[in-house]
């Protein structure tokens, strides 16, 4: 049976770019590949394209399934599809696995064409700016000169912001959800703990674990568990897990006992089997380095001086990792430049992860905003 409002069965494509890219870190990649998916149709005027950028552990698979037996749809399937808030009957939606990713784009797990060996530890650090550059290159290849919108949550929201200042003439709308103009010290601290847990895993082998057929699973598990703690609010954890235990009586040992422990262990295991450690530590670095205002909030006004897009900024009251105050800094920078901006602060209780949730009001906002974008095409 066909799934309601689903984009259906999808297939990724590969873009091979043979022109070199000079990265922010100073190194150059002579060629690279990006894996991507598209949904809906590009219209004749080629002005209905929306790029959806993924967050730390996301990928290009936004919506739909790979087969009828595929258990899990794309990560933003609740938002993207025919008749859904980001309506694929109206828009041509594109998801790209970022450079350095581990889902099919060139990354640490790929072969370095120069050495014919796996990149591993030698793969350069990539930044949000580099991603925007490579995304732009891929879009040009697809015949898209201008985007109706760039949408993203968390690290994806940072890419949306970066698009508005890096290519102000190529983007009509920027939707920035649960993001920040840069990371706080606390955020960088969490990232460093995650990195250290991976780097100090003996199976990490300084990043060259592929050759040894090892995976630093212990490090990845801990990194992911830590991440999950920070993506949820205390309240939602309390409601979901509380002090519930597997057994009626305490066991007085170190086996998994509390429900929250088994949740974190499950998430950690799942992630360690799917995600590449070298990619993870690089993605966290991209987060840490993102700072268009170079540390000075006053500069945010200057950052947006050349921006031309209209903006929708959304934050969640219970998100303590990227708090509403951080989104308000973005809004202030936009207002200082008389840029058109709408800002919503949602009362959702689930914390940072709320940007992925299926909530009527939240989706109503995106639906209404997308209607406005469509009306302007």
């Amino acid at each position, binding site marked *: 049976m066909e799934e309601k409002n689903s984009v259906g069965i999808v297939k990724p494509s590969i873009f091979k770019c043979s022109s070199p890219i000079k990265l922010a870190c100073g190194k150059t990649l002579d060629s690279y590949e990006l894996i991507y998916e598209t949904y809906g149709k590009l219209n004749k005027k080629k002005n209905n394209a929306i790029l959806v950028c993924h967050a730390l552990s996301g990928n290009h698979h936004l919506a739909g399934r790979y087969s009828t037996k595929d258990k899990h749809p794309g990560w933003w399937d609740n938002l993207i599809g025919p008749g859904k808030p980001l309506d694929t009957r109206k828009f041509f939606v594109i998801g790209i696995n970022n450079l350095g990713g581990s889902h099919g784009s060139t990354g640490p797990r790929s072969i370095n064409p120069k050495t014919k060996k796996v990149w591993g530890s030698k793969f350069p650090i990539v930044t949000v700016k580099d991603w925007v550059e490579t995304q732009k290159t891929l879009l040009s290849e697809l015949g898209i000169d201008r985007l109706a919108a760039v949408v993203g949550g968390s690290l994806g929201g940072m890419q949306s912001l970066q698009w508005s200042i890096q290519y102000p003439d190529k983007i009509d709308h920027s939707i920035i959800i649960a993001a920040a103009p840069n990371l706080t010290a606390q955020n960088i601290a969490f990232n460093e703990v995650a990195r250290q847990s991976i780097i100090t895993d003996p199976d990490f082998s300084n990043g060259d674990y592929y050759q040894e057929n090892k995976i630093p699973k212990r490090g990845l598990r801990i990194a992911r568990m830590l991440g999950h703690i920070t993506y949820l609010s205390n309240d939602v954890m309390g409601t979901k897990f509380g002090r519930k235990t597997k057994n009626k009586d305490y066991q007085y040992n170190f086996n998994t006992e509390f429900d929250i422990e088994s949740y974190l262990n499950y998430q950690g295991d799942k992630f360690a089997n799917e995600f590449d450690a070298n990619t993870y530590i690089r993605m966290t670095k991209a987060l840490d380095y993102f700072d268009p205002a170079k540390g000075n909030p006053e500069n945010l006004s200057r950052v947006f001086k050349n921006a031309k897009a209209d903006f929708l900024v959304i934050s969640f009251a219970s998100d303590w990792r990227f708090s509403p105050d951080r989104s308000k800094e973005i809004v202030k920078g936009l207002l200082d430049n008389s840029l058109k901006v709408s800002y*919503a602060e949602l009362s959702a209780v689930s914390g940072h992860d709320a940007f992925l949730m299926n909530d009527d*009001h939240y989706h109503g906002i995106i639906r*209404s*905003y997308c209607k*406005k974008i469509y009306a302007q095409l």
Partner: protein
Amino acid sequence: MKKISQTNRYDFNVIENWVRPNAKVLDLGCGDGLLLNHLKNKKNILGFGIEKDKDNWLVSLKNGVDVIQMDLESGLAGFEDNSFDTVILSRTIQSMHNIQSIISEMQRVGQEIIVTFPNFGYWRNRLQIIKGGMPVSKELPYSWFDTPNIHLCTISDFDNFCATHKVAVIEKHIMTDQKAVNFYPNLFGALALYKLVKK
């Protein structure tokens, strides 16, 4: 919550005449956003609304207004001094806790400010009180136990407030239904509109 969509917003035309063409306008408590829409159509303004209530916020967005969700009670942090030509507080002041602070914030952010409010001294309100009950009317559509209005005032109250709080009145328009009221406005006026600047 402010009531959505009052269809006969006859006060829009008065406000329109007080706003310069192409002005940058901030509407505090913009409700459904129709005032900003009106000003955009008539005066080509660059308008922003502020709205706390999530349902009103969404209606504003749907009406094509750029709207910031925040609570006015915490001031206008995030808005630079003199960054707007006109800041409007339309039919909202009576529901605010700290009147002095919002007026001074409006003066900080806007060159000119416009305040409108239902006149509690209107004879129909007085009559209802004489009869023994709290007024319920088109301008004050709430029962006493379910009203957001905590700072109702009369025209003469507001005049006194301006005189004692460094606020200069440059224009004043009192109206009932669609008509201007010049004869005993504090008694015969249902709605008061003020254009103000810092003294």
